[in-house]
C-alpha cells in the first residue's frame, strides 16, 4: 500500500494533470495487491509510456510519427499480454486494468472511462454470480471490491473533469507534417480531430468559400456521439478479443508464467526506453517534436533558441504548468522508476542465487505464496461445497479418504478428484503453493464439475 501510494505521488509530480486519472487508476488497482515488487515489474512498461506521454510531445515529421505509432503498438501489445496474464493467473477483475489504462492513454475521457468501468463491473458481477450458482455456494459480494471500484470511478471522473481541456491524445496523431490544430467537435472532454491535410479533397473544397460551411446539427451530434463511444467501443473490442483468446487457449497447456512475463517486461521496457531516448534526441537536435512542458507550439517559422531548441512560448495560465520544471522532473521520475526496477530485479536475482547456493536445483519450486495457496484452498472448498448434496465429507475423514470415496462413487471424476486432493494437501499441511498449482487446482475443479454433471445427466436420461 505504501509503495503504491509512493508510486502515485511520484506520478502526480511528474505527470501533467490530464494524465492523472490513468495513473491513479493504474496504481490504485495494484494498491490491494501485496506482491508490489512483481507488480512494479509488471507495471513498468505502461508507466514508462505514461511518463513519456506526460512530456506532451507533438509530432512534426514522419520519422517521429512512426516512432509514436510503434510505441503505441508496443504498449498496446504489452497491455494486452498483461491482461491475458492477469486473467489466467490472477483475478478476473484485475485483468481489465491494463486495458483501461491503455484506452485512457489513447483517449482520456471521463465519460467513456466511467462507462467502461461500469460495464466491466457488471460483467464481473454477473460472472461471479453465475459461477456461485453453478457451484452451489452462496453468492457473497465483495464489499471491498465494490468500494474500490466506486472510489476509482469517482476519482477518475473527478480528475478528468478537473483537468479541463484534454489536449493530449496519441489517437489523433497526424500522418506527418504540421502539428495538429485542435478542433473540438464535442464537449470539454471530447475528442480532438486533426485538420484536413493540405492536399486533400476536403481542404480543396473548404478553400473556395470565405465562410466555412455550416455543419448540420445531426452530423455534429453523431460526431460527438462517435467521439464518446470510440473509447468504449475500443475497450469492448479489446474485451471481445481477450475473451476469444481465452476461449481459444482454454484446456491447453499454454500459460504465460510470471518469469516469462518478467522477461517480456524487461524487453519491452528496454525497447520503450530506447524509443524515449530516440525521441529526445530527435526533439532536441532535429526537426522532430518539441518538449516544452505543457506549452503549445508556435507557428513553424517561430524564433529558434540556440542548440536546436525552439521557443514555444508560455505554458499557460494554470498553476500546475511549470514548463521550466516539467522536463527535469519527468527525467527524474523516469530515473527513479528505473532505480525501482533495478532494485526489484536485483532482489529477484539475489533470491535465485541464494536458492542455488543452498543446493536447490535451478528448477526448484518458487517460494510459497499465500495468494496462490488461497486459490488452491478456495478451489478445494468449492469442490466440497459442490459435493455436499452428493457425498458430504465427514469431519473425521482425511482429504485422501474423501477422495477415495468420491472416486468410487463417481468413477469418471476420479482422476481430477485425486489431482485436486494432491494439490490441496501440500498447500493445507505444508504451506507450499505456486502459481501453476493454483491454476491446475481450478482446472481440476472445472473438470470434476463437468464429469459429475455429465454422470448425473446420463443417469437422468438412462
Amino acid at each position: 500500500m505504501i509503495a503504491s501510494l509512493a508510486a502515485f505521488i511520484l506520478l502526480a509530480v511528474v505527470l501533467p494533470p490530464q494524465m492523472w486519472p490513468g495513473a491513479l487508476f493504474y496504481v490504485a488497482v495494484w494498491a490491494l495487491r501485496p506482491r508490489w515488487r512483481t507488480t512494479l515489474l509488471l507495471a513498468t512498461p505502461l508507466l514508462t509510456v505514461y511518463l513519456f506521454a506526460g512530456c506532451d510531445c507533438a509530432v512534426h515529421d514522419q520519422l517521429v510519427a512512426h516512432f509514436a505509432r510503434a510505441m503505441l503498438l508496443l504498449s498496446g501489445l504489452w497491455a494486452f499480454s498483461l491482461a491475458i496474464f492477469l486473467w489466467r493467473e490472477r483475478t478476473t477483475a484485475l485483468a481489465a486494468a491494463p486495458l483501461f489504462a491503455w484506452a485512457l492513454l489513447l483517449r482520456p475521457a471521463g465519460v467513456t472511462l466511467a462507462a467502461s468501468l461500469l460495464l466491466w463491473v457488471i460483467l464481473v458481477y454477473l460472472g461471479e454470480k453465475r459461477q456461485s450458482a453453478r457451484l452451489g455456494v452462496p453468492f457473497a459480494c465483495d464489499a471491498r471490491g465494490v468500494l474500490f471500484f466506486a472510489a476509482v470511478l469517482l476519482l477518475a471522473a473527478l480528475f478528468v473533469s478537473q483537468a479541463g481541456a484534454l489536449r493530449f491524445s496519441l489517437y489523433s496523431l497526424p500522418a506527418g507534417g504540421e502539428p495538429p490544430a485542435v478542433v473540438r467537435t464535442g464537449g470539454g472532454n471530447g475528442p480532438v480531430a486533426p485538420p484536413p491535410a493540405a492536399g486533400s479533397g476536403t481542404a480543396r473544397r473548404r478553400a473556395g468559400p470565405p465562410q466555412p460551411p455550416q455543419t448540420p446539427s445531426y452530423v455534429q451530434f453523431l460526431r460527438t456521439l462517435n467521439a464518446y463511444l470510440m473509447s468504449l467501443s475500443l475497450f469492448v473490442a479489446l474485451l471481445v478479443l481477450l475473451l476469444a483468446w481465452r476461449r481459444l487457449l482454454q484446456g491447453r497447456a499454454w500459460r504465460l508464467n510470471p518469469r516469462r512475463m518478467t522477461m517480456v517486461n524487461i524487453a519491452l521496457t528496454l525497447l520503450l526506453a530506447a524509443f524515449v531516448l530516440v525521441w529526445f534526441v530527435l526533439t532536441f537536435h532535429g526537426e522532430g517534436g518539441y518538449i516544452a512542458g505543457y506549452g503549445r507550439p508556435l507557428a513553424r517559422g517561430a524564433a529558434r533558441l540556440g542548440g536546436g531548441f525552439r521557443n514555444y512560448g508560455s505554458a499557460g495560465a494554470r498553476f500546475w504548468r511549470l514548463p521550466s520544471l516539467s522536463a527535469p522532473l519527468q527525467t527524474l521520475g523516469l530515473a527513479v522508476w528505473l532505480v525501482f526496477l533495478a532494485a526489484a530485479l536485483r532482489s529477484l536475482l539475489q533470491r535465485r542465487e541464494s536458492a542455488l547456493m543452498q543446493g536447490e536445483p535451478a528448477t526448484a519450486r518458487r517460494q510459497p505464496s499465500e495468494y496462490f495457496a488461497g486459490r488452491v484452498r478456495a478451489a478445494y472448498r468449492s469442490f466440497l461445497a459442490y459435493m455436499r448434496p452428493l457425498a458430504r465429507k465427514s469431519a473425521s475423514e482425511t482429504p485422501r479418504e474423501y477422495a477415495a470415496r468420491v472416486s468410487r462413487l463417481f468413477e469418471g471424476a476420479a482422476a481430477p478428484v485425486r489431482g485436486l486432493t494432491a494439490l490441496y494437501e501440500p498447500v493445507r499441511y505444508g504451506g507450499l503453493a505456486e502459481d501453476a498449482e493454483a491454476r491446475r487446482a481450478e482446472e481440476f475443479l472445472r473438470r470434476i464439475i463437468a464429469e459429475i454433471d455429465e454422470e448425473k445427466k446420463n443417469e437422468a436420461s438412462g
Partner: protein
Amino acid sequence: MKRVAEWYARVSENVARVMVGQQQTVRLLLAGFLSGGHVLLEDVPGTGKTTMARALAASLGLDFKRIQFTPDLLPSDLTGVNVWRDGDFRFVPGPVFTQVLLADEINRATPKTQSALLEAMAEGQVTVDGETRALAEPFFVLATQNPIEMDGTFPLPEAQMDRFLLRLRLGYPGEQQEEELLLRMRAEHPLDKIEAVSDAAEARSLQQVISRVQVNPELAAYVVALVRFSRSDKDVALGASPRAALGLQRMAMSLAAIAGRSYVIPDDVKEAAAVVLEHRIILKPEVRLEGSSAAGVVERALKSVAVPSEEGV
C-alpha cells in the same frame, strides 16, 4: 526427503527378498527405526519375527545380536559384566552393545531383566558397577512376544510397554504368499544371500533428517486430540501418555518422509495412531471381559476427532 524415500525403497526391496507379503509391516518397522523408537513384534511362533529382524539388520548394514529371553536370564547377561583378568577388572560387554538387538520372547524374562533392557532402550546407555557406558548409534531394539502362550511368562507392565514406540503384528501370510515362501526356501534360505544396502552413517543422518519434516500446528493439535480422546473414553482405565503423543508425531513425520514428503498429512497420523496408541491403552477389566479391545478405542478416536481440513463446508 527424497533421500529418505530412496533409502526406504532400497531397504524395503532388499527385505522383501526374504519376507514375503510383509510390505506394510516393513514400512512401519522402517518408519519406527527412523523415528529412533523401538518395536515390539507380537505374534504367534513361526510367523517370521526373527527372520524379519535379521533381514532388516543385514539390509541396514548394522551390527546384529540376538538374545533369547528366559526366566533365568540375568540383567548382567544382557548388559555385560566386569571380570577379573590379568590383575584387573575388565568389562565384557553384553549383547546389548550392538546396533540392532533382537530380544526374543521378551515376556519370558523376569521383570528385573526386562527393566535392564528397557532402561537401555530409554537412556541409550547402561550402567554396570557404577560405570555408565553409552550404547551404539543407532540403537534399535526389536522385541518379540507370543500373545497366546502365557504360562511361565512375565507380561510387560504398562509403564514398560510405553517405552516401545510401536507394536506390530506380522500375521500369517496369504495363500499365494505362503506358496511363494515354500518355493523360495526350497534350495536355500534367502537370508544367507542378503547384502547390506545401507550403513550406520546413513541411518544416523536420515534419523536427523526426520526432524526437518514439517508438522502443521493444527495437525499437532489433532495428535493431541487423539491422545486425549484415549484418556477420556468410557472404556479406558489408562489412556495414552504424553510420550505417546510425541511418538505419534515422530512416527507420522517418518511416514511422511518415507513417502518423500516434507510435511505430514492427516493420513500419516491416522496410520501411525493404530500402531503407536493401541498397546499403550489399558481397558477397564469389565470391558475387556466383554470382548472390547484397545484397537476399538483407537478406531473410535479416529472416527470421532475432526481432521483439520477446510472448515465451514
